[in-house]
């Protein structure tokens, strides 16, 4: 059996669980094993419904006082008992913060191997291998677990797509599993969870960004950039001088003294590309730079560079995008 440990809070499933189920289905095809999903914690029934629609053998709801609120000791004890009862060959988990917190402890407690941050599953020479990055992602390794089952595997977030998880013909059965946990063995006493105040503008999640630099010359000209941003469906951002001058709010500043962004498209308008700015947007997939100065450092990292007056170039781009 391949056992996927789901992650949910108050009946709301962490999407990474669906990605892990997609990986489990691929593994199931290679290893010819059925997939079961264990949903731990209160409210498991709510999440179980969504999982049941997928192509899995069964959904196992484990509810126990030890699981609420989350503690690494409680989870380790409950899951150790459940795994002991179910005897799976593989235990798959999404590589979430919560998993990172308890999974090493769980594997160590059971004296089993843990393969972390896996990006793929494959069959090599009749053996099942798990692909994981090494050396800061410079190399990947195929890892085959040794020793006796169960083998613990955590899946990198985003390595599989949630919509890859195949739907089942009929709803999978849901059953409850009772586990025994010695409540006195739980040493952590968590305080009530709190949500950190969100930044009003989270540029780090933006897919497209139009960013303005000193080349914009005057505050009233920001409107031109704003129009381009609207046409592209992009967020507007700026380099430090623009925010210092108060032309755009500080939270829209990109660079070493502002936010670090990694959009698919970064349009730099009149930004010279000082290194403090570059380090804040170096992760952008495609950089388009428009600047009058052909020697501007921004062109060193731009994928597309237009040497020209942004007041002529930008309206032309807006027109082109609208068509």
């Amino acid at each position, binding site marked *: 059996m391949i056992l996927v440990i789901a992650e949910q809070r108050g009946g709301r499933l962490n999407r990474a669980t669906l990605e892990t189920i997609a990986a489990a289905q691929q593994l199931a095809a290679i290893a010819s094993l059925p997939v079961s999903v264990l949903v731990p914690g209160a409210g498991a029934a709510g999440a179980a419904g969504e999982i049941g629609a997928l192509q899995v053998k069964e959904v196992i709801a484990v509810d126990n006082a030890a699981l609420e609120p989350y503690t690494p000791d409680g989870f380790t004890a409950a899951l150790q008992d459940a795994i002991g009862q179910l005897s799976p060959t593989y235990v798959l988990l999404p590589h979430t913060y919560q998993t990172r917190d308890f999974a090493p402890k769980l594997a160590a407690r059971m004296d089993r191997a843990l393969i972390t941050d896996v990006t793929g599953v494959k069959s090599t020479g009749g053996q099942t291998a798990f692909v994981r990055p090494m050396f800061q992602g410079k190399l990947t390794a195929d890892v085959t677990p040794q020793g006796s089952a169960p083998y613990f595997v955590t899946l990198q977030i985003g390595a599989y797509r949630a919509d890859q998880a195949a739907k089942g013909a009929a709803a999978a059965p849901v059953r409850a599993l009772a586990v025994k946990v010695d409540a006195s063995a739980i040493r952590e006493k968590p305080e009530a969870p709190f949500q950190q105040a969100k930044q009003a503008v989270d540029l780090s999640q933006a897919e497209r960004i139009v960013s303005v630099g000193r080349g914009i010359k005057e505050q009233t000209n920001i409107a031109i950039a704003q129009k381009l941003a609207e046409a592209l469906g992009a967020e507007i951002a700026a380099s430090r*001088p623009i925010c*210092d001058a108060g032309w755009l709010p500080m939270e829209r500043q990109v660079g*070493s*003294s*502002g936010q670090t962004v990694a959009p698919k498209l970064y349009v730099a308008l009149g930004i010279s590309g000082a290194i403090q700015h*570059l*380090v804040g947007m170096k992760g952008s997939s495609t950089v388009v730079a428009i600047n009058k100065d052909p020697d501007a*450092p921004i062109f060193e990292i731009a994928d597309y560079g237009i040497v020209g007056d942004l007041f002529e170039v930008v309206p032309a781009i807006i027109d082109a995008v609208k068509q």
Partner: protein
Amino acid sequence: MMTTIVFWLLFLTFVSVFAAQVARRVRLIAAAPNTFSLDDVPFRIRRFATDVILQKRTIQERPVAGLMHAFVFWGFVAFALYTTVEFLYGLGIVDLRYTAWFGRYRIFLAPFAVAVLVGITYLLIRRAFVRPIALGTHVSIESIVIACFIATLMITYLLTFRLEEGTLAGRINWWVHVLVILAFLALIPASKHFHLVISPITVFLKSPELGNLPNLDFEKEQVGLETVKDLGSKSVLDAFTCVECGRCQVNCPAWGAGKELNPKAIILQTQDALLAGDREKKLGEVYTEKVLWQCTTCGACENQCPVGIEHLPILIGSRRGLVSNGDAPEYLGAMYNNLERRSNIWGLGYDQRAKFVQAAGLETFDAARHDVLVWLGCAGSFDADFQKSLRSLFEILRARQVKFGVLAKERCNGDPAKRTGNEYMFQELANANIEDLKAAAPKKILTSCPHCVKTIGSDYRKFGYAVEVVHSSVFVEELTRHGSASLSGERSRRTDVSGPRQTVTFHDPCYLGRYGGKVDEPRELIARFGGAIREPVRNRDNPFCCGAGGGLLFADKEEEPGSRISDVRFKQLRDTGANTVVTACPFCSIMLKGAQASAGADTQFVDLMTFVKDRL
């Protein structure tokens, strides 16, 4: 007979009050981990001569007040024997007052007494009425009392020429004189006047190296300074030596930009914590963590201190303690990640350095073929802007047939880690770089980054790696000294520079001017190649920092524009009236250009190497 007994009683009482207070401080010094060192004694003797005997550091920054202080100091020294003779008489041991030599000596002292009176009157007026900010916001009563004591001593001495020995007035005058000395003795250990006694020792024990921070020994589980009891013996001595003159304060760029950090407060807080016996108190609470992270490590406080105090071992030592406990600010966490993963402060991939090396046509260093190894540094490897000035340097070197190469790969030298207290990361980077440098075996390293000069040239010596590291300004100054120009002594007036000179201002980088002492070479180059320098306030070996040092390059996130150190310095440079700023450090350039952009000014920046190249 009776008076001798009374005098003895008074003498013993006051001396024991003095001794008890001194003993308390000596015990605190002795209880601290020993950080005293006596390397480079000839340097220490020279500095003792200039700073203690000649009062150089006291006078140079505040010429009038400094000279007045020197009058008082020299007077005190001159009077030492006089006081001794009077006490020997008072204690009934021996009466030397009527010997011929003492008669001559007594007259010899008269001009000193007048000088002390002039000096102390000036200083008293300055402290009580002028009240410069450096001396603190409230008038110290104790200082006024001490000043009056000193004046009284001189007046009572001068009165001995008028009052007859043996008359009532004469007796009273003598008693006033010796009682004031005794009261003075009892007052000084607990006051800033303790510097009278210990500052010569502190000056002598001050490290010859500015910002001396011995490597932590991880084998001995050294983690930096965490609590009051970790402060080294030199720091404890420093705390009791402080004379509260505030030179450190007014020269501190953080304080100058309106931040909370005040180096004088750091020393006084140390003193308070030590005397309160708070041995277990965390240094992050003694000084507050926020303040500790405001230091740019520019070294102005330590360098300007006239009594030998070393601030940097306390500031950076406390940072080490914080970092060891995971209490570094968030922006440093990001930088440490970059250093750990990519070995550079920006977090960029080294393929960019490789691209630049290729595009600039640089060869891999080979000791057999190359004269110098050029160290690019974090800025030279990645900052397109600074790469332009490096290209200028390469052009100059090629024009003068200097054969040079670069390492196949470089890591950050570790300066940002060292100055922010991440000693473990610093040592990792240093050891790895030293291994590569030893393999390449250059005789001389040339770099355009003053931080690389200081770190590789000086800090790496503590790992047993000693090589000559020169800044490009020094190297190119020598290289172009005998160019097409005459070989006469008039180096700065090159005959082929014609036409009007370009007015520029020059910003001394702290790590070049203050740490490196290289202040003439850049000026020589600017003058030789047709520039006329308008000096900004705070120049040469006491520049006002650009704000980048000590890891603060990445810290301006939380700061209000206009209050950044870089903004303050940029304004000082702009106030020279020169429209061109010549820089000699990539980080100064980044900070000041940032300030210029925020100010919306049209000031031009040019790196020294580009300035020279364009006029070669």
